[in-house]
């Protein structure tokens, strides 16, 4: 028998809210199936099963209480086992994530609301209606403000980032390296590619350095790793965390999977999908924890050089600055080239600057042959 527990979706997570079950008692599940939705300070995530089996008991009902990481939420009889005394699933209130968030921000008790969505689900309009209707009067369904019922999204997001970054700065002795990369070959190749494509199939410039980072990690695998218990655990696969800002404030760094094996077109599709899901709150739990390195891209802003803070337990973060025209000296001549300043912040416990230098050098060389990406 296996336990399905409140997962840790990052170094900054200590508790989460069980938003909904996607399974019922008696359901057959396979490794990777979505079992539940969990809300953390960074949003709502779909959580996958880690083993095959049958849901035997559901121990915790969805609600608005924060549940500590590690708490058993359900039990699973693994393949070949037998189901012991299945429990009937208690009727639960369905609440959309957006409604839950708005309710939490306004200290509204969800248990007292009649939903108008399908099967009585509470949807965003229900909460908005309630707020509009009761703005000027006493709100009967409002709880005491000091009662902690849910993680306030913006404050929670800030606290989560604060916890992870404090841990990083406290424990990780960072070293920093930077290199200027001539992007003229890469950009003219990309321009030619995009000229032949309809707008829907165009590639964004960031996919080139992203793929190049993945290929450079094959040469310096020590930077694609986690530092756990004073030991370096190398990652078998190249999953790259990509920093995505949220419009309401805050930052999430979910993973793009097996980037080294994706074509640029596949990577563009994966990136679009990841950004869309991040911004609409539809990420999977695994995407929050399995990256071996993070890339942060400041190409849209005027920032040239990034001095990154590593996301623990990872050991490196790559910063991509804005590609801008710079004077470029080469073979005794001076010209103007589009230049990308790529930086590396790396954990000096896990490796030395020589390694980091090899990585940036490989990144540079790979970007000089864009057709091979």
């Amino acid at each position, binding site marked *: 028998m296996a336990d399905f527990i409140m997962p840790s979706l990052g170094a900054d997570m200590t508790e989460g809210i069980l938003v909904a079950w996607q399974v019922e008692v008696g359901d057959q599940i396979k490794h990777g199936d979505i079992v539940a939705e969990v809300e953390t300070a960074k949003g709502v995530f779909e959580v996958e099963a880690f083993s095959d089996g049958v849901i035997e008991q559901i121990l915790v009902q969805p609600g608005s209480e924060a549940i500590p990481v590690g708490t058993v939420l359900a039990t699973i009889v693994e393949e070949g086992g037998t189901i012991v005394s299945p429990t009937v699933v208690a009727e639960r209130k369905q609440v959309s994530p957006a409604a839950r968030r708005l309710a939490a921000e306004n200290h509204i008790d969800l248990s007292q609301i009649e939903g108008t969505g399908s099967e009585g689900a509470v949807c965003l309009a229900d909460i908005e209606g309630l707020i509009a209707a009761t703005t000027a009067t006493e709100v009967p369904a409002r709880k005491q403000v000091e009662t902690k019922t849910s993680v306030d999204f913006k404050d929670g997001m800030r606290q989560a980032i604060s916890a992870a970054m404090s841990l990083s700065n406290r424990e990780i002795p960072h070293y920093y390296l930077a290199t200027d990369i001539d992007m003229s070959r890469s950009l003219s190749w990309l321009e030619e590619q995009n000229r032949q494509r309809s707008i829907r199939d*165009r590639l964004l410039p960031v996919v080139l350095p992203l793929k190049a980072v993945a290929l450079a990690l094959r040469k310096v695998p020590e930077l694609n790793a986690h530092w756990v218990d004073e030991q370096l655990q190398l990652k078998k696969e190249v999953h790259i965390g990509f920093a995505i800002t949220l419009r309401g404030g805050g930052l999430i760094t979910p993973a793009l999977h097996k980037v080294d094996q994706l074509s640029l077109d596949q990577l563009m599709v994966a990136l679009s999908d990841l*950004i869309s899901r991040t911004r609409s709150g539809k990420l999977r739990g695994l995407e929050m924890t399995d990256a071996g390195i993070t890339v942060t891209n400041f190409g849209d802003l005027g920032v040239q050089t990034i001095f990154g803070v590593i996301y623990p337990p990872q050991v490196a973060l790559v910063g991509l600055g804005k590609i801008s025209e710079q004077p470029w000296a080469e073979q005794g001549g001076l010209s103007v080239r589009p230049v990308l300043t790529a930086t590396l912040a790396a954990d000096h416990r896990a490796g030395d600057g020589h390694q980091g230098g090899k990585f940036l050098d490989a990144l540079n060389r790979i970007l000089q042959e864009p057709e091979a990406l």
Partner: protein
Amino acid sequence: MTETEIKATIIAGLSQIAPEADFEELSPTENIREELDIDSFDFLNFLIGLNDKLGVDIPESDYEKLISMTDLISYLAKRID
């Protein structure tokens, strides 16, 4: 299609990306991407949306011409059949 209709289509597209924006406040000559904090991913999706609605496939080399609301309206007005 009139310029007013083009503007309404542009605003509808931008509202999907920046629902909190107040388009009454947006000056016609302001840099839209800076003002509304639109990154290259959102901008590409915005252009894909315009392509769906107006049938104008904007080549990448023209992106730099599309800075303000005025730029967008006049660019699109010239290319809509």
